[in-house]
């Protein structure tokens, strides 16, 4: 899962080593590479703003993966069968893995892991708004797979062609693994829809609660996304927020029909002229409230993350102590 086209500056971007002002020749060469759709690699010269934008976007993406383990993790101990529990464990484990791929990609830009984690833990860095909503019942897990991961795939596939090599390659790896995430969610919901009226109602309830936050995941409308043009110019962003959102709506409507649920939008209908679906207005005030820390679960997600990090301190210390001990022993043997 789970990038979000936030275009929101972190309160403080992680500190980066300063790069001397670009001689024109370097800038020209960079522009030529971008124009030719070539990749920028860590050793290449790049404008400081390009580097800063990537650090922000990739680290926000990594944070989203790690925070994204929580809403579903909430149901691991209460999954309705051993099969669903094993699947959910595997999925949450994947999200952790995706976070690690992405932190490593961000580190190639010269920012340290500790700096990024610190920005997350102190609330300076953002992560996807969607994870600040609660998972109230089992069907939420299936709906997250179907809709949240579905939206994430829509968002992430174009990033596989991002101009920054390490990010693009991390995304290719991630996208290969996402298909399992969406399919397990949809299949779980199909099974539940064959159940009792109450079980079917649970699916509909989950869809009703997640639909609008999922549409907001694609980020503010193009008209309000100040950085979209620059991101497009740099080949970091390939498809605009509104275009991705439209693609997602058009792909999801027939899936909802197969599943037998309705989408909670009275304005949602096929537009013959546009050959696309029209949909209702998104509540952007709610989106910004959630992004700015006032969603239903912001505080819980962050405090869980900080606690997990602090609780893991002794493991990191023990690993270091073990490595130091091994090294000392080797040196003693060599001596």
């Amino acid at each position, binding site marked *: 899962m789970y990038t979000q086209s936030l275009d929101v500056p972190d309160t403080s971007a992680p500190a980066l080593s300063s790069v001397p002002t670009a001689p024109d020749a370097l800038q020209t060469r960079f522009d030529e590479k971008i124009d030719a759709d070539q990749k920028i690699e860590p050793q290449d010269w790049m404008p400081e703003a390009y580097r800063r934008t990537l650090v922000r976007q990739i680290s926000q993406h990594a944070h989203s993966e790690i925070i994204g383990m929580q809403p579903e993790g909430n149901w691991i101990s209460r999954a309705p069968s051993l099969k669903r529990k094993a699947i959910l464990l*595997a999925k949450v484990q994947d999200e952790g893995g995706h976070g690690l791929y992405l932190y490593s990609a961000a580190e190639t830009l010269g920012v340290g892991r500790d700096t990024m984690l610190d920005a997350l833990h102190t609330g300076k860095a953002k992560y996807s708004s969607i994870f600040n909503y609660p998972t109230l019942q089992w069907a939420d897990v299936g709906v997250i797979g179907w809709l949240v991961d579905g939206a994430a795939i829509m968002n992430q596939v174009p990033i596989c062609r991002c101009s920054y090599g390490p990010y*693009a390659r991390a995304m290719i790896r991630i996208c290969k693994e996402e298909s399992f995430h969406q*399919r*397990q969610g949809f299949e779980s919901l199909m099974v539940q829809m064959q159940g009792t009226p109450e079980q079917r109602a649970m699916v509909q309830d989950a869809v009703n609660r997640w639909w609008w936050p999922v549409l907001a995941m694609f980020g503010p409308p193009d008209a309000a996304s100040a950085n979209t043009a620059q991101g497009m110019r740099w080949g970091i962003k390939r498809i605009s927020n509104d275009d991705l959102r439209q693609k997602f709506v058009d792909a999801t409507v027939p899936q909802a029909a197969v599943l037998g649920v309705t989408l909670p939008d009275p304005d949602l209908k096929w537009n013959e002229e546009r050959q696309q679906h029209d949909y209702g207005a998104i509540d952007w005030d709610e989106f910004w409230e959630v992004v700015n820390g006032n969603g239903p679960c912001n505080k819980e997600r962050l405090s869980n993350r900080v606690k997990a990090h602090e609780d893991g301190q002794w493991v990191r210390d023990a690993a270091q102590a073990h490595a130091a001990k091994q090294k000392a022993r080797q040196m003693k043997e060599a001596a």
Partner: protein
Amino acid sequence: MSTTHNDWPLWEVFVRSKQGLEHKHCGSLHAADAQQALQMARDVYTRRQEGVSIWVVPSNTITASEPDDKAAFFEPMADKIYRHPTFYEIPDEVGHM
């Protein structure tokens, strides 16, 4: 010929075949230092423009998994077929998912 060649350390060579792709291991060679290893890797492994970028890594800095432990090392992944998308039956009318 002198025997000094044998004293040159071994380097593992990774070549990026095309811009945008990852570096892939393609072989190894002996060289006196990193710079020489790069030049020799160019001559040995990219004579026909097989690459756009080369990494060389001292072989003795690589830690590898034990071939004999392969079964035990990778076994935990063997029975988790549900990690693959094909494990899930989705009706055709849903389209690509």
